[in-house]
């Protein structure tokens, strides 16, 4: 289960007051988010794990800088993004800052974690699809390959890919609506 902004913020405020169990909950809830955030942006798996640990340590060392009057997500996202930019700087990867990184720079992507959560939800829903459909959707919609490229990768025909994408998306939408209805 993914903790909401309010829950995280409450845990953070308790952590600042020295509540160790709340702090453990908080860090445990943040870890998978950080993992998704860095793995999506850093292809070297061990570097991504290093970044997760660095971010957790930064959250720890700088925990007095959180202002309880402010929302928590921008604070933690600010640290996560700062550590990522720091990593790019150290590896002289100035050119390869992803597009959404630039959007983050101008302050429009404070919802980065929400997007990561949505992606996780999508991943969960896609697990229930037939393998061929899920793979077709994955390749054409998430990895943004063309139908022809996807066909080559799955060693099937273009029409088969198209049918699988169509059926897969239709099933996903139905599942999504169902899970939304359950969550209300």
């Amino acid at each position, binding site marked *: 289960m993914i903790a909401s902004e309010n829950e995280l913020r409450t845990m953070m405020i308790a*952590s*600042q*007051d*020295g*509540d*160790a169990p709340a*702090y*453990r909950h908080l*860090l*445990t809830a943040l*870890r998978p988010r950080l993992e998704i955030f860095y793995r999506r942006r850093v292809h070297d798996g061990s570097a991504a794990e290093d970044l997760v*640990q660095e971010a*957790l*340590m*930064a959250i*720890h060392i*700088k*925990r*007095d*800088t*959180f*202002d*309880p009057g*402010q929302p928590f997500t*921008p*604070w*933690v*996202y*600010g*640290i996560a*993004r*700062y550590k990522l930019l*720091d990593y790019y700087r150290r590896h002289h990867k100035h050119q390869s800052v992803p597009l959404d990184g630039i959007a983050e720079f101008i*302050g429009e992507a*404070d919802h980065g974690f929400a997007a990561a959560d949505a992606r996780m939800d999508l991943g969960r829903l896609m697990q229930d699809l037939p393998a061929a459909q899920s793979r077709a959707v994955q390749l054409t919609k998430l990895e943004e390959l063309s139908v022809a490229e996807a066909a080559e990768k799955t060693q099937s025909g273009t029409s088969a890919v198209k049918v699988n994408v169509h059926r897969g998306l239709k099933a996903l939408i139905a599942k999504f609506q169902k899970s939304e209805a359950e969550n209300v």
Partner: protein
Amino acid sequence: MSDPLIDSLTADLKPVNRHRIGHRLALCVIAGLILGAAVFWLLPGRMIRSDLDIAVTEPNFWLKFGFTAGLALVGYFSLRQLSRPGGDAPAAVRLPVAIWLGLALIAAVSLIVTPVDNWTGWILGSTAVRCVTYIVLISLPIMGLFFIAVRRGAPTRLAMAGWATGLAAGGIGATIYGLGCPESSVGFLAVWYALGIISTGLIGAFTGRHLLRW
């Protein structure tokens, strides 16, 4: 599932002081005023206006004081945001622009009532270069103090935080310099004081990208 890092971070957790950054920044203002006054004292040809008792009765003296101290306050309050992760302060750019435009408007109006022959003197004064360099020289050590405090927070927009640091330090430095500066025309203020403070701000923005890393 147990995570060794989380185990070690949560062990022996101590309450933290949330007001630490705020206190440090406030301390910087006081220490900055003292340090700036000391630097001003050491600079060659310094002077406290001998007619300070008369000057304080003139509106232009207070306009000058309001302009420099106002920019210092904008920088200071922006830093309170920018020293924290994810903190932003668009006002650190917008407000100085608005304040300067207001000043420029007053300057333009007074320019109309000034005889054309006096325009050059009215804008250039007799201490223009000295004004800009002294404001920057007084402000840089103050900026150093602020950098230490901001770095011990956790700024995540370094250039912006550097700009706000320069603005706060430049505003404080210009306020100190203003107590001794004999120039009182609005035109001089809008050009040379503004230039001194903007220069300090830009130095802050460029150096902050490196010096504010934590």
